[in-house]
């Protein structure tokens, strides 16, 4: 009998102990950012992940922008991307940011023919202008990558650029005073990884849209082009200058690769051919847009021409023969035969593609 009493007593006590702590109240919604898996009672204080879409009007005559499904543009993402773009934190010694070689005043390109990395080693190609990139189907002069996200992985770890490691970048960012919260706001993540760093940078790059040049305002009927600019427009868009076959449409590029007769063989830089291993692609490079071309000197993949005059002179003299030179170069060594006035007019037209709003962003 006593034994029974004792057992009951213990059972009573043990149940009493279990009931002691009050039920945890908290957010019980799995979809909330502050979901508490231990909570039993909902406290109605759930916080939900919410971003503001970054909206823009698709420019006249442009296709839909290429935006990966998993990385839509948000205000939070674009603004985080801009901060990362401008921050030397991505480089190994905290000395070099994206913007160091993609300078705003130069239409986000490098005013030097080639860029110099943190170890004072120069690259071999001109840093591309970052303008209307969301409509490109491949990136780098050789089209080696197919998305901006993929592209942004490279410079950070390239030994002659930022010479960092992604592991190091992740440690630095996760221990930073501001970035963890900014990544949380943009992507709802608690640990910053390299994937989300490049996603933010890519969002910012897609937001670099230029369609407010004098030429755009001319198309909208807001301004007139002067006679010299109009003549340049005609040369550009007829087979006399034949600029439009590669620099066509409102995008002023064709998303393709061409050999425009810069060099004879053997090529110092195989360009596209190095990626495809196809000899027919040797010496071909991706057509850059001509929008803001006035600001993005020097020109060509290796920055060999410092002025638009030099560029036009190249086409006017017909370039050099090689087995892959584009048939549209037509008369190698003879060229377009434009008069000085026609060259001036063509350059006057090219300068109507300048968008000062863009470089003053």
């Amino acid at each position: 009998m006593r034994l029974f009493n004792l057992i009951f007593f213990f059972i009573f006590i043990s149940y009493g102990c279990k009931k002691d702590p009050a039920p945890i109240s908290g957010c019980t919604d799995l979809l909330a950012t502050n979901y508490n898996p231990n909570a039993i009672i909902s406290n109605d204080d759930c916080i939900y992940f919410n971003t503001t879409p970054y909206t823009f009007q698709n420019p006249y005559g442009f296709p839909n922008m290429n935006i990966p499904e998993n990385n839509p543009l948000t205000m939070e993402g674009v603004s985080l991307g801009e901060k990362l773009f401008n921050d030397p934190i991505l480089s190994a010694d905290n000395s070099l940011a994206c913007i160091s070689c993609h300078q705003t005043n130069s239409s986000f390109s490098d005013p030097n023919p080639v860029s110099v990395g943190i170890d004072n080693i120069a690259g071999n190609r001109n840093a591309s202008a970052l303008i209307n990139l969301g409509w490109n189907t491949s990136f780098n002069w050789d089209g080696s990558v197919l998305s901006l996200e993929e592209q942004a992985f490279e410079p950070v770890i390239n030994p002659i650029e930022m010479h960092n490691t992604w592991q190091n970048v992740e440690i630095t960012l996760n221990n930073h005073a501001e970035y963890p919260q900014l990544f949380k706001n943009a992507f709802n993540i608690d640990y910053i990884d390299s994937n989300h760093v490049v996603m933010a940078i890519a969002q910012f790059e897609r937001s670099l849209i230029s369609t407010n040049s004098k030429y755009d305002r001319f198309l909208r009927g807001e301004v007139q082009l002067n006679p010299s600019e109009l003549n340049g427009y005609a040369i550009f868009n007829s087979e006399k200058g034949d600029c439009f076959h590669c620099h066509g449409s409102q995008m002023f590029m064709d998303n393709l690769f061409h050999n425009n007769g810069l060099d004879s063989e053997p090529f110092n830089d195989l360009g596209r051919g190095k990626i495809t291993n196809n000899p027919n692609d040797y010496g071909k490079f991706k057509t850059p847009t001509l929008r803001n071309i006035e600001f993005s000197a020097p020109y060509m993949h290796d920055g060999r021409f410092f002025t638009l005059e030099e560029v036009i002179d190249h086409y006017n003299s017909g370039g050099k023969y090689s087995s892959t030179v584009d048939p549209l170069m037509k008369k190698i060594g003879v060229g377009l035969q434009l008069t000085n006035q026609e060259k001036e007019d063509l350059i006057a037209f090219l300068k109507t593609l300048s968008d000062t709003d863009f470089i003053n962003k």
Partner: protein
Amino acid sequence: MKKYFLCLMIVFFFSCKKEEGCMDPSAANYNSDATIENGDCTYNLISININFSQTVNQNPLVLNEMIYTNEANDNFSIQTVRYLISNIFLHSVDTSILIKNVHFIDVDNPESSSIIVNDIIDKNYTQISFTMGLIENENQTNLYLNEDFFPSFVWPEFLGGGYHYMQLEGDYNNLFLGYATHTGPTNGIDYSFTKNFDIPTNIQDGSSITINMEINNWYSNPNVVNLYNGIMQNSNIQAQLQENGITDVFSIVISK
């Protein structure tokens, strides 16, 4: 009594004639005894391929080699072959089905050499028709912004707008001259043309229809055309190329 028998015969005779059913011989439930179409024909579905090939003097195209000679005695190589084929239709006696609105062929992109056509009704198709290029009202600036031939096929608005029909490029006579046989809506005139070919054998599931372009015929028959540059504003040459194109540039082959 004989009269009644005759009447009975007549009744039977007419009742036989009145059998209802599907009267389309290409239908899966074709009823050869039916005399009244009941509108309930069902068809098997088949999948076929439409292929696009290119030849020069009946041999498969070889790119980037100065091995060809045209009717005008120009030696030439071929580096770029891109063209638009639009409004591809298969026709049977009573219906026409649209296979594809616009198809862009680029010999640098092997995927563009074939259209897989899935689940079309199995009928006795007797003809295939298509348009080389784009007809006028389908050839407008800013149409096709999201197609793979944008922007490379843009025909500048300054030259009337719309899109090229074809970009055929290479070197000629010596390596330092490039030609560009670019056809399109020169001076706003529609130089596209439509071809119609009989399909001699019945196509079935897995059949292929190959539309071949004999490239050298662009430059001969009836007009001998030199290799030029700068023909995008030359209506005369565009008209000659169109006429040559209609004559014998295209042919079809059915396999299987």
